[in-house]
Every structure is written in C-alpha cells, then in structure tokens.
C-alpha cells in the first residue's frame, strides 16, 4: 500500500528528469518530423499487420494512461501555468538579448517538446505537492 501518512524525501531532479524523459520518449516515438517514428512506420509497408496492431494498442493505452495521470495532477490551471512559464522563459531570453522576438521559430519539434514538458511535469507534480504540503492526490473509488 502507498504510505499515506509518510512524507519521504524526494530527489526532485532525477524524479522530474526520469518522468520527463519517459514522456518525451513516448511523444517523440509516436510522431516526430525526422521520418523515424511510429506514425511513419505504421504508414509504411514494413512489419506485419498484427505487430502494428499490437504496438498501436500499446501506445494508445500508454498515452491514455499518461495523459490521464498528468491531467489528474494538473488540470487546466496546471497546463496554463506550464505554458505561461514556457512563454515567460522565451520572453526572458528575448529580454536578455539572446535573440529577437521575431527570430523565435516555433517548429514541430518545439511543440512536441512543450507537450512532453507538460506531461512530464504533470506526472511529477503530485510528488512535489506531497513533499511541499503533505497533501496527497487521492483517486475516489469509481462508482
């Protein structure tokens, strides 16, 4: 059983890095513009149909699970907060004079990176909440 009363110390960097890497692997594995992704593989003629169906169902289930867990921890406010933070960091770098605002180039890679960041932070968030305030994210029994 998860220890509800305990408040064990966490390693924030490795905690976040592992989950963020996992989400990035999932997101970039499903689609990326380099041409080597699940999306391109499924549309090509390599591999048998059963293998494709198997991988498809696995990826669908994994994505559904990750998105549900991330969204349960964050909600809309969390998504907006992360996006604001990303936008703020762009503005900050513009403010530091690293590049002009017109030079900001939002590519598909950038969008995918943002999605994996949102998912990674969302999955890690309840650990931080528990460590910070001692509150746990508890799911009710389904009806």
């Amino acid at each position, binding site marked *: 059983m998860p220890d509800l009363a305990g408040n064990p110390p966490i390693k924030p960097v490795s905690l976040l890095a592992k989950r963020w890497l996992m989400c990035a692997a999932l997101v970039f594995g499903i689609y990326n513009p380099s041409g080597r992704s699940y999306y391109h593989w499924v549309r090509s003629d390599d591999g048998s149909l*059963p293998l494709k169906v198997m991988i498809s169902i696995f990826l669908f289930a994994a994505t559904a699970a990750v998105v549900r867990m991330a969204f349960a921890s964050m909600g809309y406010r969390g998504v907006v907060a992360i996006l604001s933070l990303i936008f703020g960091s762009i503005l900050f770098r513009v403010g530091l004079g690293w590049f002009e605002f017109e030079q900001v180039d939002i590519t598909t890679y950038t969008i995918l990176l943002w999605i994996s960041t949102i998912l990674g932070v969302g999955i890690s968030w309840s650990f931080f909440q528990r460590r910070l305030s001692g509150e746990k994210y508890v799911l009710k029994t389904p009806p």
Partner: protein
Amino acid sequence: MHNGFNWLSYGLRWVASILLVLATYNPYGLSYYDWVTTDGGFTSLKVLAAVALLMLHIVTILSTARSIGPIGAGLMAAFCGAVAWFLVDADVLQIEDPRMFELTVLLMVAAIYGMGLSWSHIRNELSGQVHSIDVTDFSAV
C-alpha cells in the same frame, strides 16, 4: 522508488494470477474444476477449496474493477489479443488445438488480473497518485 514496487513485484502478481486462474480451470485436466467434476469424495474439502478460490477471485476482480476499470480491462484484453494474433501470425502459437486456444484465453484473463492487481502500484510509482477505497459510502466495487 517510493514503495519498492518494481518489475519483480509486477511479475509476482502476474504469476499469482496465472496460478489462480489455471488452478480454477485449465484444459489439461489438472484443476479444481476437474477435481470437482470427476473424482468422488472429499466433499467438505471441496467446499473449503471452493470458498477459498471464490474469495481470491472476488478480491482480484474487485481490485481490477477499482484500479483499471472496464476501459483498462478492455485495453488490456485488446493488447493481449493483439499479442496472441502476432504470435499466431509468427507460427509460435498454434490455436487450432482447442486446448491451446482455451489456455490462451485463460492466460489473457490472468494478464488482466495481474495488471488489475498492479496498476494502483504502478500509478502510484509513476505519478504519486493514490487509489482509494471509499468505505464510508460503500460502493459496489
């Protein structure tokens, strides 16, 4: 990481589910079902074993219904079906043999049981969220 749930813990739950399902019924004639239907005698022991098996099944089914629910069980069944299809396509699994077909279905049920027992742990390890059982407003599952 936080409760020590690892691949071994998942494997143990999976193996226990396989043992439970196959001990209740399997097509090779060495199961509780065959013991009850073919041999005579030992009625009291059979009743005891029936109660024990029923308890284990109910606990497992309720855990599965609470943690992954019908959607998760459906996804798990679809994934197992796809794995079976892949193995059949690769000529590893011969389901023309009806006993092999039954065994495949039973192993799929066991895989759903195993994931149902493990998913709360996995979710807690991944995201820190905790599944709970509401004992105040007691629900059916």
